[in-house]
């Protein structure tokens, strides 16, 4: 399930992105989020009520709170600390105190496994 993609800056400099197995699809409830770590970096994997998967950076852009503890409401993730909100499809910050957009990553599901392009 692909979405807008922008490469992490450090990746642009050091390595080519690749598909990484993040979790089993059934690990993520509908309208929920789980955390996933890869090479010392945290990601958030979302599943919408319609069953689509999305992936973003794992931390709120406001104060680096882990978003996997937050609440998914439709296509919005709410930071569990300060109510900052982002559109999980685009990473767009839609409520203060979040002012900077989240980085998003393409996802795909193969044989029940969710892959993230990181």
């Amino acid at each position, binding site marked *: 399930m692909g979405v807008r993609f922008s490469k992490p800056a450090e990746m642009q400099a050091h390595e080519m992105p690749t598909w990484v197995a993040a979790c089993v699809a059934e690990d993520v*409830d509908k309208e*929920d989020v789980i955390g996933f770590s890869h090479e010392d970096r945290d990601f958030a994997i979302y599943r919408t009520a319609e069953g689509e998967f999305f992936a973003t950076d794992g931390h709120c852009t*406001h*104060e*680096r*709170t882990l978003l996997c*503890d*937050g*609440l998914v*409401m439709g296509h919005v993730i*709410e*930071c*569990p*600390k*300060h*109510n900052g909100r982002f559109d999980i499809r685009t990473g767009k910050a839609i*409520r*203060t*105190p979040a*002012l900077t957009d989240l980085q998003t990553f393409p996802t795909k599901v193969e044989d029940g496994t969710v892959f993230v392009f990181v």
Partner: protein
Amino acid sequence: MTAVMGRERLKCYSLTGEQGERAVSLGLAGGSEWFRSDIERKRMKELMRRSDFPAVRDTLLWFGLMGAFAAAGIVLWRSWLALVCFAIYGVLYGSGCDSRWHECGHGTAFKNTWLNDRVYAIASFMDMRDPTVWRWSHTRHHTDTLIVGRDREIAVMRPARLARILLNFFGLVEFPHALWEMLCHASGHLTPEERTFVPPDEQSRVFRTARVWCGIYCLTIAAIVITHSVVPFLIVGGPRIYGVYLLQIYGLTQHAGMGENVLDHRLNTRTVYMNCVHRFIYSNMNYHIEHHMFPMVPYHRLADLHEEVKRDMPEAYPSLWAAYKEIIPAVLRQLKDQTYYVRRELPPGAAPYRVPPDGRALLETR
């Protein structure tokens, strides 16, 4: 290393002083290490889930009661019964607005964002707190709760400014200060402290709001002059003087006498059991440890959250009276000994307190 003590220590609380920078460099600021009780994810989602019904019901009741008592006060004006009516109206306005401002500021009161933001705007006006400045201020309060030099909302410092605290039971410091801030904002300026936490892009909104509020207060003054009556002031603005005492009584229980520069809300915050009237006026903020630990749980689920986490909590205070029996001696002791703070026993099996083991809690030494 010399500890800064006495009145000199009050300078440590400035957001523009060196203590804030030291807190950042020592890893006390930023909010990433705070203790949280373990709660199953499924249960946590249930607790965080939003609903409009409780807040719509409580807001209608709140506005309805204010309207009824204000109307009764006007009708019964010049009778002693008007005093009773305005006493109740004043508390609903002057004290009740603060918890509505607070809940809607967290974005948790209503599911509907539009409703949430409209009630936030109204409650902010009633509370005389600029909605933008105070949203950012309160964000900082939750990130760096009682971190000296970072948290602007420390109501009782060490040593306590007792005269200021007592005067604020009648808004005698906060009311003129809020008026001054409003005029400052209306003229296009933020205070130096506000500039440390309000992003530049948000500042024009502060100035615009202050100008609208100035207009409303000018209309109130005009109504006083035209009617030759103090009633317009009793209805708009005045309750922040004569109805604010209950908010002070509630608010001081939150953190007064508790630990500074600790990374565990059980050490710097209180949970106090209150009756249903207090909980209505205060929007359940008596469950204050729970609120700080999980700020995105709506006020109407805090009692349920309390049940989930109380295994890790010091015993809740059974009443306001019980809380004040601890607060008053603690604050008086801190007048002489600024290293003292209340540290309560945890129940058997509770997760231990998270205290920086490296002396960071002694931040005020230099």
